């Protein structure tokens, strides 16, 4: 379990990183926290010719208020985000998500940007940023651009970034007023890749009618999987237990496309999706109504 030979760079600034990415293109791989990349390299499933280690770039580790929400530098460690008061206040769903990610050891090392750029369809952050409609700031030698989550994740372990691109920041917008949220997942052990999980955000108007609903699933396909048809059942209505049941069944049966593996068949995953959607909607509804 030793990696194949590779060239190693540890640039000290973002422009240096962009130069290297420009120079090496597809041969280069950015090393952030290394919690997925390094094991894959040690298994020799991934054999990049060049490693660009961005751990020595201090300016990518900020957490700042941004437009009533927050923005996080790509090198913010999970554990840093987990304890951050700004995130707790302005991005409570992110705050609640952090302890559900992997283990303490992995959270101490793993980065927000790394997890998002890796785009594992089982990763909590991939799903939660999609539900929150987060925006991703991407830089290359030519400039920078902002990509919404829906256009960032394009497939299994695949984002819309090009070989010369570096993810530098993620912006988390605030949830609308009267919103409730929930992240529910089932993992064999708490730190394992979840067998199934769902992030829910519900927004109500003053009459408790649902004005917006988002349900995004992890381990349910080749990326974060949304359930717009199930959401339609909720939007415009007062949410009743019957509606919750119907939406959960709709999403689980028709909108997700989970695979089978040794831990769970697609059928069991659909069952879990149904159960978790119901529980998440109940919790989100209660929060939207002001309970907590």
């Amino acid at each position, binding site marked *: *379990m*030793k990696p*194949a*030979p590779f060239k190693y760079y540890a640039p000290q600034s973002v422009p240096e990183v962009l130069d290297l990415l420009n120079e090496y293109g597809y041969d280069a791989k950015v090393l952030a926290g290394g919690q997925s990349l390094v*094991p894959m390299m040690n*298994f*020799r499933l991934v054999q990049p010719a060049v490693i660009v280690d961005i751990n020595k770039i201090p300016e990518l580790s900020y957490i700042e208020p941004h437009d009533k929400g927050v923005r996080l530098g790509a090198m913010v460690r999970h554990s840093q985000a987990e304890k951050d008061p700004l995130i707790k206040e302005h991005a409570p769903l992110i705050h609640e998500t952090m302890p559900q990610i992997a283990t303490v050891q992995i959270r101490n090392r793993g980065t927000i940007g790394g997890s998002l750029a890796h785009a594992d369809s089982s990763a909590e952050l991939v799903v939660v940023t999609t539900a929150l409609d987060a925006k991703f700031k991407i830089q290359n030698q030519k400039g920078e651009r902002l990509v919404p989550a829906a256009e960032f994740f394009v497939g299994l372990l695949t984002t819309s970034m090009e070989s010369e691109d570096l993810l530098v920041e993620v912006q988390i917008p605030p949830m609308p007023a009267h919103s409730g949220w929930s992240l529910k997942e*089932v993992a*064999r*052990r*708490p*730190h*394992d*890749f979840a*067998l199934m999980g769902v992030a829910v955000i519900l927004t109500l108007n003053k009459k408790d009618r649902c004005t917006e609903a988002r349900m995004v699933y992890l381990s349910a396909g080749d990326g974060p999987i949304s359930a717009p048809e199930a959401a339609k059942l909720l939007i415009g209505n007062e949410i009743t237990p019957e509606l919750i049941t119907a939406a959960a069944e709709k999403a689980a049966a028709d909108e997700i496309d989970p695979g089978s593996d*040794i*831990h*769970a*068949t697609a059928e*069991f995953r659909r*069952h*879990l999706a149904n*159960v*978790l959607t119901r529980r998440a909607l109940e919790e989100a509804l209660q929060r939207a109504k002001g309970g907590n």
Partner: protein
Amino acid sequence: MTYKVIGKRVKRVEDPRLLTGGALFVGDVNLPNMLHAAFFRSDYAHAKIKSIDTSLAKEIPGVVGVYTAEDMGEAWEPGPPLVSPPPTLEGVVFNSRRQVPLVKDKVKHAGEIIAVVVAESRYIAEDAVEEIYVDYEPLPAVTDLEKCLEPGHPLVHDDLDSNLAAYLVQNKGDYEAAKKEADLVLKRKFKLDRGAAVAMENRGIVVDWDQKNQHLMIWDTTQSPIPIRNGMAARLGLRTHQVRVVAPFVGGGFGPKIMMFYAEEMVLPWLTMKLNRPVKWIEDRKENFYATTQEREQVQEVEMALSKEGRILGIKQKIIHDTGAFDPYGLTTPLNTQSHSMGGYDVQNYNSELFVVFTNKIIVTPVRGAGRPQGIYVVERMLDIASKELKLDPRDVRRLNFIPKDAFPYNHEIIDQAFVELVLDSGNYLPAYEKALEKIEYDKFVQEEQPRLRAEGKYVGIGVVPFIETTGVGPYEGARVAVEPSGKISAATGVGTQGQSHMTSFAQIIAEELGVEVEDVSLVSGDTAEIHWGTGTFASRGAVVAGNAVLAAASDVRKKVLKLASKILETPEDELELEGGLVRVADIPEKSISLGELAVLANPFRGAVEPGTEPGLESTKYFGPAYGATAFGVHGMILEVDPETMMIKIHKYIAVEDCGTMLNPLVVEGQIHGGVSMGIGNAYYEKLHYDENAQLLNASLADYLIPTSAEMPHIEVYHENTPAPNNKLGTKGVGEAGAIPVPAAFAQALENALPDFNLEITETPLSPNRLYELLYKSEE
């Protein structure tokens, strides 16, 4: 007998070294000029090798050599059979097929080694392994235990008529006659799947051939350094004094590190002698899943005949036991299954037919529990099912069937792993069982807690399971104890340490005998230069067999001390006492001499050693029991299950154990804790998934799920003491105990938690997915 040091909760003396990085592991051995080996392992589980191309690998700078079976020439031979052939039971079949150093013609399991690369670094060696190309002719794999004996099925070993590795029948009484008297005859099929041992330290070996000195030094993560030394010398045509094997600190053994003569252990000594340079290989985690032995896979059909009161009239059993591609460890594991399939119960009629089969899976040898969990699982599950059928309290059924206290020694009449009839030396089962029920508050739980929580929508259940564990089998172990001129004690035993606290427990025995502090005893375990004879650490036998050898040697030293001190202090021996490193006259404490001074006097520089005595205060003694000591225990758990998500949480866990005299309760409890974690793994987490091509689908710790601290309940351990009558210390083994009853207790608790689901569990391990199928899908 009351002890001053034995039985006390002495903290482990080895821990400061271990916890501060001051302990030597094989991975720490780095020698000048050392080379590194990496292995090319087959991706296929069953395939003919058509050709091997190592030319590209040899071209990589830093590669010293790439070798295949052909290169080994005369040195190529399979590993030795480890356990002598089985007893001459009527109709016994045993086909011995042993693992090979490098595959010659046909691969028999995924991960078998086809070539070895030796290079200046492990990185380079692994780069070169990637460049080896083998052309295979894939063959259909043998995986299904129930189908693999059918005529025309593909064969693992082409020179055999079938995949049968062994066959035997054990019989006691007359089951068919008993069945006629029965009120209830139950028949069930059980599936017990495979797990891995997952020691924290993988295997590793460093070898160094000193040509001028004609001496081979081996550091090896073995549980059995002396048999490895003996075997290596024999393989290599050397005398035993030309080979020294050191098993330093080893990070967990759990069975697979027993004297296996793994392929790597056969290849590396050949390499160092060929290349005249030290060679190192440390198994990585992925290799461990292919290269280190596994256990537990069986299919059983069990029939139990009972009276309407719940008395077991007889048990009939058919076991198909998977030994993987080879059977180097003989019948130890399935014999253990048979000897535990009657549990601690008085069963007069038993008939058990055993089929051991070869498959294209990784080799099977004992893993902590070693066949015993499978036996306990089936008998306890059958009793639970019978209790339901007969509408009896499962506790009463067990109470009714326990072997009574006055029936010991109780001849189980079943040939066990020692190849003699299993005699249960001693026991007092009912009080331990009642204690467990009391400690887990069984009555309160079922009468108050369970209904209350059920009303809150929570599914909670209780499971309490008793078990026996045969321990402390022969043949023998030895120990050497010596008083140094400094007054400190040196000791050695051939029983290596993989975390069992030998350096503390054995020191306690010596400290007790010689009146010194535990810290004054320095024990070497696992170095063949320190003791010549012995077997190793396995079968829960260290505290029994080595412990009593240590006691014998320490007692003998004590005799020598008293004899010499009596002469010097001019006081009869029976008026002397050993205390605080001194020998003193009991009534006149100031009249004393230190052990160190005595040691100097016992090794005179001038003057002769008296006839009939030996120099020094030293003794080497051996202990070999006629038959083993059988321990007993009861485990109970209360768990909660969410029948929608299939997630489980164990709220309470208690263990009552009876391992006779405890050398150190802290150590006993630690063994129980570790065993329970393994048992919880075997119940709900740890399963090696092989597909129909015998491909292992979870060869990493991301997919092979061992319980972590987050899954572990708090474990309360309680002790009973029925001393073993056949050894002086009265000890029984406890190393494997913790793992044995857990899957059975888990199944009982799960069924108890889900009364509305008509759940009957006949397989282990379960998983959330499997539980979902059992609860919501009708079986085909």
